[in-house]
């Protein structure tokens, strides 16, 4: 983010970027809405800012575009805030989308809920929308090689063992 700068020109491009960001926000908020709905706690209405009002509510950030980028979207980090109505009032959720080489590379969710139940649900969503990897035993996977750094230098390992021994004595 430290290298971001506000957009000032390239309105055609901006429109595309805005569309991309809004599309991402819709996807995320739809996912969030669906998630909340599935939990059966509330009826969720999703309101996404219309395109022409987007510039008022969205804080757009743009990085310098990569020279080699083949896509029509400029690489960079885009922030937007989406809102949806909850029975106690309107709630907001912040979304930051990182585009690299024209694809959504990362999405961060900022929790902005005010009502206690909304807070809980947004926290739950933020904690669960990302996928976690799990380990599988090497013997169960057909492999030629393993890439990692378990083969640390012998000198280092010996020293570490020695320190452990000293600590135990």
């Amino acid at each position: 983010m430290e290298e971001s700068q506000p957009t000032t020109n390239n309105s055609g491009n901006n429109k595309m970027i805005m569309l991309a960001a809004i599309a991402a926000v819709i996807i995320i908020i739809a996912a969030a809405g669906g998630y909340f709905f599935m939990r059966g706690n509330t009826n969720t209405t999703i309101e996404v800012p219309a395109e022409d009002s987007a510039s008022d509510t969205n804080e757009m950030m743009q990085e310098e575009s990569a020279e080699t980028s083949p896509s029509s979207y400029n690489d960079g980090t885009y922030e937007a805030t989406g809102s949806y109505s909850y029975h106690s009032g309107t709630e907001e959720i912040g979304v930051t989308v990182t585009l690299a080489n024209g694809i959504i590379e990362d999405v961060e969710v900022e929790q902005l809920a005010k009502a206690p139940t909304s807070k809980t649900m947004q926290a739950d969503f933020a904690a669960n929308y990302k996928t976690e990897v799990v380990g599988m035993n090497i013997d169960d996977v057909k492999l030629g090689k393993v890439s990692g750094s378990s083969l640390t230098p012998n000198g280092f390992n010996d020293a570490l063992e020695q320190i452990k021994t000293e600590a135990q004595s």
Partner: protein
Amino acid sequence: MRSFNFAFEAIGTLWVIDCFSASSSEKIKSQVLSRIEDFDKTYSRFRRDSLVWQISEKAGEYRFPEDSRIFFDYYSRLYKITEGKFTLLIGNTLSQAGYDVSYSLKPGKINKVPAESEVFSFDYPVLKVKKPYILDFGGLGKGYLIDIVSDLLKENGVDAFCIDAGGDIYCHNLQKSMRVGLENPLDSKQVIGVVSINNKSICASSGNRRRWDKFHHIMDPDSLSSPENVLATWVIAKDAIIADGIATCLFLTSPQKLFKYFEFEYLVLYPDMTFKKSKNFPSELFTAQKNLVE
């Protein structure tokens, strides 16, 4: 076509080289070992007979071998791109933190890291050293050495080969892509996914290995601490020097900054086991829900 393989220990790790070649294995093996020895004797901060050791004791002008041109070029590019975070000067910092020549692993006082220009300047083949300083060539060293050994094998008519230097790998011209498991940093008996590579290198970096006190082998020269927001990284690139360097740099800076200058694919694993990867990282990752094939 004959095939043979040889394994040996060098630069502190286990190397396994599989070759498919008409040339004699003994000739190739001795050339590889002697080339690695030359490299180590120039760039290792862990041996008292190295050029880097001399630099740590005395200011002056030091003449470097031919391979230094590319080496210093990559170091200086990554130094600029990472705004000084990826630096040869980290050798002093690692050493003061306890990762020193005698592996004391006992942290002492850690000094602020100066600008490289205050310590040295390089004009091939001469390094002007203004004050004695411990330089660390570990950030790119293993990757560069894999590329050097790879060139050597090609020059010797080895048609197809795979070099594995302690989990950093380069495969050349294999009939079938190599299936490489991505080691779980928390359990070396497990993998978190599989990639298939050929004519490419994959290098890994993990903050979970080589740990002592509150440090691991990567240090941020600004905070003088080891980054803990990333658990491990894997990078695939055409050259091992790039894969190796970027695997380290992803602990220190964002992939976006590096994409402007290098072609690579990456996977970053976070301490909570969530991940971030580039679109074309050719992996099959194991997830809690199902095997995510991409």
